């Protein structure tokens, strides 16, 4: 524990990801090196097709990498993600990582509270009764306690995303990974979600979040930019000049401030 405590939480070492398709090989990530520190709120920004989701999938291990290594030092152990079997990875991910997608990915046949209970059920870390209490607590935290027994179809998109966040927090994971979590929400709702994230970071959690909204940059504790599968050096930010290529999102971002 103490040993890993001094190490960065997540390390990327020369991560390369090539997509193979009919058209040939497409290099989506071209040798990424990066480190995520504990309790930071890291933003990954880049325009559409830059490779943000691909990069994020390397954090969660849901997709294979072509070469390189992703190492996570958490819960007292250091793990190279892509050496784990799909099964061990699922279990590890359930306990270590909360994942949030732009499309909320709730299970439509389960009520909100059951959706939130699901990761606890899967990890087997909590007694069923305990997990129910915890799920209700989390829903209370995201201000959805009064909807706890509704099905996802009967609440709004912003509310669904808050459920997804509550679900991501269910197993108390040290890391939360979010891919455009506010992408399909209006600016007020997006701001709400963002505030939630900020509170989570304050309470000691680490969040890695992908967005193409440059306006959000100041609210991250740190941000990196990705262009065509490569990270730009932090100081050098030519992308700023291209802000006009996301006029709408830019406004949303500003509105969110």
């Amino acid at each position, binding site marked *: 524990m103490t040993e890993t405590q001094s190490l960065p939480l997540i390390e990327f070492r020369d991560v390369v990801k090539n997509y193979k398709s*009919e058209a040939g090989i497409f290099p989506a990530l071209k040798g990424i090196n990066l480190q995520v520190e504990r309790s930071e709120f890291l933003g990954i920004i880049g325009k559409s097709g830059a490779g943000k989701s691909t990069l994020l*999938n390397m954090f*969660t291990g*849901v*997709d294979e990498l072509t070469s390189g290594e992703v190492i996570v030092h958490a819960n007292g152990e250091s793990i190279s993600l892509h050496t784990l079997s*799909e*099964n061990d990875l*699922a*279990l590890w*991910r*359930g*306990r270590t990582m909360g*994942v949030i*997608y732009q499309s909320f*990915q*709730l*299970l*439509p*046949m*389960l009520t909100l509270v*059951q*959706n939130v*209970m*699901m*990761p606890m*059920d*899967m*990890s087997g870390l909590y007694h*069923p009764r305990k997990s129910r209490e915890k799920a209700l607590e989390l829903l209370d935290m995201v201000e959805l306690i009064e909807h706890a027994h509704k099905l996802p*179809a009967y609440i709004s998109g912003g509310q669904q995303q808050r459920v997804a966040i509550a*679900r*991501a927090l*269910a*197993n108390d994971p040290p890391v939360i990974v979010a891919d455009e979590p506010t992408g399909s929400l209006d600016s007020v709702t997006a701001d709400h979600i963002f505030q939630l994230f900020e509170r989570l970071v304050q309470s000691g959690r680490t969040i890695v979040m992908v967005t193409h909204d440059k306006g959000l940059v100041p609210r991250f504790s740190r941000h990196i930019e990705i262009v065509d599968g490569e990270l730009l050096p932090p100081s050098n930010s030519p992308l700023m000049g291209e802000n006009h290529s996301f006029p709408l999102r830019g406004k949303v971002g500003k509105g969110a401030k």
Partner: protein
Amino acid sequence: MRPRWRKVFSDLIDNKARTLLVVFSIAVGVFAIGVLVGAYEIISTDMSVSYAANNPSNIEIRMSDFDEEFLHTLGNVEGVEDVEGRWVFGIRVRPLGSDEWTSLNVITIDNFEENKINLLSPVSGTAAPEKNQILLQKEIFEDFDVAPGDTIEFQLSDQTVKSIVVAGIVADSSTDAIDFLAPPLGYITPKTLRLFNEPEGNFNRLYATVGEGKDDEDHIKDVLSNIKDKVEKNDYMVWRAFNSKTHEHPLESTINAVLGILFALGVLILFLSSSLIANTLSALLNQHLRHIGVMKLIGGRDKLIFRMYIVLLFAFGVLSLVIAVPLGGQGAYALSEFMGTKIGFELLGYRIVPLAFIVQILIGILVPLAAGLVPVIKGSRVTVQKALSGDLAREADEGGEKKESRLESFQIRAVSVLADRGIRISRPLLVSLRNTFRQRNRLILTLFTLLMGGATFISVFNVRVSLTEYIQVVGNYFLADVTISFEKLYRINEVQQFAMDDPRVTAVEGWAFASAEILYDDDTVADNVDILAPPAESPLVNPLLVDGRWIAPTDKRKLAISESVYDSYPDLQAGDKIPLKILGREEIWEVVGIFKFIGMEGTIAYAPYEYIAKETNVVNQSASFRIVSDSHELEVQEELAKDLDAFFRDNGFQVSETSPGLSMLNEASESIDILITFLLIMAVLTAVVGAMGLAGTMSMNVLERTREIGIMRAVGATDFEIIRMVLVEGLLIGMISFVLSILVAFPFTYLLSWIVSSATFETPIAVVFTPVGYGIWLGLVILLSVLASVIPARGAARLTIREVLAYE
């Protein structure tokens, strides 16, 4: 409930149509197997138990009149355990107030309490009649209703009509068991004989049991042969002789063969229903891909997800068992009961057959597990990434992309070729064509199910016609319009004169009979054979010869014999000589011809009247006459039979039975119809499974395309266009399966016909094809395709665009 089980539960109840489809698919197969296994168990046990319980005779000899003293002598023949003599005669009966006569054979039993052979089981009333009372066999209910205490009228051969009290109804599973065309029976004591103007103290039938080897056919035949020796040495005549085992109902092998066929069809249905389940489940897993992805994302392992879906499969199985087990038990009993009444044996009572129960449970649980295993394993192994992006195509089959595009380019080419000829195919039509082939595995399974259902359905109709045609062929041995049997011999001239008085009668023939045994070279008995002796040139037999020639007037010690002789002499050819024991003598006869006949009826042979009459000392006399009239319609025959019957009785002839020629055929066809009914039930079940397959596939296709349909509607497609798109797809599948069914129905028909005819006739029959089955199936397929596609399509078209696009 833990969320994972909550999810499984929701999967089960949320999409009720799909759950019902899966549950019914399993239930149909489980039901069919349950009915068949249950019926098989019940029938094979009860048939032999109830048969043996009544101590059936091993030997029955119909012979000229004999008395108590000679009966005693026969009781001392080696190997004989018990003997009983009975006096059997035919009357006609009707309930009071009816004018419809029914033939009845009356059996006189000396002592009902001490009777040892062919026991009766009481059904209602008494089982031992007093003087001037009669017991009726319960089969009488097929002709009229009667209760103990009722009085019925009967008519004697001299036309007098009297009445008698029915003392009870009994079941008799032994007497005439071999002959399910025999008339019902009545039972009286000798004290009642006077009422019927019948002589006392005589017997004309001998029933005997053997002491040991009650189930050893060869032994029984040997004893029979001993008895016949004794009978014939004492100058009695044997008309017919039968032998049967104690613990085997004479029709048991036939019934078992029929059940065997049904069982094979049941397995086919089961097989089809499992392919249906596999289809539905892999679609379900496809739909659940995203859910699986989500669960894996939040920490679900393969094993856990696998277990969740196995529980779902298990639940499907249990639900289907809830439906199929009770129904199957009922069905098994109903089928057994139906067989029992038709064939004439008693069931031991309603019960659950443990074997059927276990088999059903095993099948109900294992079939969905087996059918779902591959899709479930595939589904639970899918990676999160692929599951969330819904990208299974590449996982499922590597060349998928390429094939799709090959299909596409073929389509483009085909469309342009057609366009060159001025045929334009509309866009939605193209979409439906492509949809049809998009899910190749599903299409193949659906086609397979429909195809097997269709081919079985069509074959059943073909076999039905083949069987009836065959009965017609057999009818060529019974060409007389009316058959009259007398209680004793009459001069042929005399009968001829009387009969020709009726202007409708064009010819009269008197036939002779002899009973013989075919021997092996070592003098053991191979088979009984009934020799029919029509005048050699008789036009009333039109045999279907498989070898050699027909009988000729000058034939001496020569006969034509039915095909079942092959059982004893497999290599027999026309011209061969076989040892025969006839009229108490061992002789060598020449087989001049071999002909086709219903093997089940035993071996029969023809020899010329000219020779047999001389040998049996009945020259110019006969007790059995064949009459030809100017019309061969059944109604005319019936009319003539009735008139001749009355006429001969009026003139003092002792008529035993008069029957119209086609009636025997009709009854034979009726028993064939029982078989056909079973086959049709099976055909309908296979059709149901096929229909469910199509309905399932279409609704899955539509379900998966709900979003696509929403988008099409959003860009302006009308409900009509959407329904047409799906309809074309359904019809296309239906038509492809129909064309394939036509082809597959050929081998199926031959196979089914071979199985059925070997089972019932012990000889394969000529196959006949009829358009009826094809026509009905075509109609059904069109109807099914329309229903199976329009119903889900309408459902999808009704959804609003918003609902569709929000569709999960």
